[in-house]
């Protein structure tokens, strides 16, 4: 009589780490939407410019980096305007970095909610990624507008080909990498808050070793350096992204390295899911 099926819910000490309970996540989809809305709307409450900031912020960053790096890097990108090149890199990087830093903070930032109400915890990293995608898309549209302008005035050639279909994959890969690294860090920050101070610094450092403001060292120039730089899973993604929109010379589309990044992303994602499931159960007692 007391068979498992009789009960709607059984609370037990240990649940399998692979048990993601996606059905329940689906049941809470309205909450996901509202979290996304909250993250986006609340950011520009009480600002005058409102959502314009989503574009203005990377734009200002681009202007600053232009002042600093334009002279040293603009010759190596095959005549492409350095401004456009940097904006493209920064938009992608901010998107990745936001996924990373926000998910790494998810348990601590939400501890007051997590401590009082149950809902599938997976909702909050999902919400972070979704709102980051939306912000990225806004910046992406702006980038396309700028690109068209530069094409019209003849500064950039029309080089868009079938490879544009790779863009959704690249966007997903960047989110997966950010999310996975972020979740791995989040499992440690619940115990050691020290890491929160290191993340901002680490992400900044990571940006300068990634091809954000400059292209990767070409293989022909220094094969060893090229190899080391490409080991960074973000490198081939950023390179491909720039290649697709800004043409050859600004980036390269390297299938083997892209495959490497894809494998890397899926592997860390898999690990992150396990870590998340483990931390989710116990963090309320440690946070």
């Amino acid at each position: 009589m007391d068979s498992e099926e009789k009960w709607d819910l059984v609370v037990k000490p240990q649940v399998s780490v692979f048990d993601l309970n996606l059905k329940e996540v689906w049941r809470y989809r309205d909450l996901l939407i509202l979290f996304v809305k909250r993250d986006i709307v609340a950011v520009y409450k009480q600002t005058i410019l409102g959502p314009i900031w989503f574009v203005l912020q990377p734009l200002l960053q681009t202007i600053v980096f232009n002042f600093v790096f334009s002279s040293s890097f603009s010759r190596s990108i095959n005549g492409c305007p350095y401004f456009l090149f940097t904006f493209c890199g920064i938009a992608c990087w901010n998107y990745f970095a936001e996924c990373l830093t926000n998910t790494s903070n998810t348990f601590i930032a939400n501890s007051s909610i997590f401590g009082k109400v149950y809902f599938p915890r997976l909702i909050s990293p999902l919400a972070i990624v979704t709102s980051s995608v939306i912000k990225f898309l806004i910046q992406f549209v702006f980038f396309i507008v700028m690109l068209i302008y530069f094409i019209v005035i003849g500064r950039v050639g029309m080089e868009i080909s079938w490879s544009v279909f790779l863009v959704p994959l690249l966007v997903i890969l960047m989110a997966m990498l950010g999310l996975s690294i972020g979740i791995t860090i989040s499992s440690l920050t619940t115990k050691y808050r020290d890491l929160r101070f290191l993340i901002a610094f680490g992400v900044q450092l990571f940006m300068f070793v990634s091809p954000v403001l400059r292209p990767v060292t070409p293989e022909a120039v220094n094969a060893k350096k090229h190899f080391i730089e490409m080991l960074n899973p973000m490198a081939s993604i950023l390179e491909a992204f720039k290649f697709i929109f800004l043409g050859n010379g600004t980036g390269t589309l390297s299938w083997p390295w892209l495959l490497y990044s894809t494998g890397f992303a899926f592997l860390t994602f898999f690990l992150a899911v396990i870590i998340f499931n483990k931390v989710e159960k116990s963090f309320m007692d440690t946070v």
Partner: protein
Amino acid sequence: MSNNVVIKVEGLSKHYLLNKSAKQKSDTLYGNFIDGVKNIKNITKKREKQDFWALKDVSFEIEKGDRVGIIGRNGAGKSTLLKILSRITPPTKGRIEITGNVASLLEVGTGFHGDLSGRENIYLNGSILGMTKAEIDAKFDAIVDFSEVEAFIDTPVKRYSSGMYVKLAFAIAAHMDPDILILDEVLAVGDAAFQKKCIDKINDLSSSSGRTILFVSHSFSSIRSICNKGLYFDSGKLMDVGPIDTVITKYQRFVKETVAQNINVNVKPLSSTGEWDVGTDLSVEVSWERGRFAPGWHCDLAFYTFDGVKILALQSQMFSEFSSYGEYNAAEFIIQNVGFASSDLRMDVGIRKDIDTPYEIVVENCATVSPSQKSLPLYKRQDVIIVPKATCKAIKI
């Protein structure tokens, strides 16, 4: 009978490892620097841990339509039980089986975002509590109506008064539609009229649709008005299950017995009606064994509302009459009700050698006092706590 069981708890235990903080933490920034450097050296060392069982081998069953009041002293394990039932933290051992969907309200206004308007927060908070958008759409008007904040529904909630904030939050919670509703001290919100409205709403929910309710509170009056069944916890163990009145009686007897071993507390209103009405005095007589406590010791009282807010603390050495007696084994406090809100207050008693020594004994929850405002006209009744007029003198019994 057994197929009516909606919650079945078997051998439930919850274990925590507490860090033993061996030495006093420094309270200067410089001292913290030094501590930080020391911590780096000790990072690989295992810190000493202390076992703590918040719940130990608890088993019970709850049937459909039961309205269960959970009582016990602070730290008895009530909130831990609710947290496990609400799936916020997993149990260490044992299992719980539940039929029907559960909504728990361990706090009102969870996830409220100050920058969002009341309207946006209704949707956000409702979804956090497990409602779908369609459900909230359907109940939106009823929620706004119940909350009494209709005029400010498009104002960011950070501009709300704290009363409006909790009213809106409770209104959302009151419109959840679960089979099992778990409540933790949440009724301590708003003014007396709003509290009554909430209790009525809960009673209405449970009687009209046979909803099961689990309710933690220190207020016996609100537990009595809602619950028909009681669970009584002490130090993580389930001490008694049964009809609410028997459980409360047993709990009170237990508390009295613990008190009797060490000190005696006698509380009585000094008014003709037997109520502690505004303007009348309450006598609290605390006496203790002569052998254990020497003359010259101090006796302190503290009053808390049932959601744990300390509203009044009296120390015997505050009163000049107290020290003029040499040998005494009791203290009598006379406290005037200068306008306490009409809600139950629980009283803690502590006895110690001197004002800066730790308490030799503390008896939590040794009495419940119920101030009333009956003699005041309605417009003069208030929630504000005013410093009372009180005296205390040493006596000999």
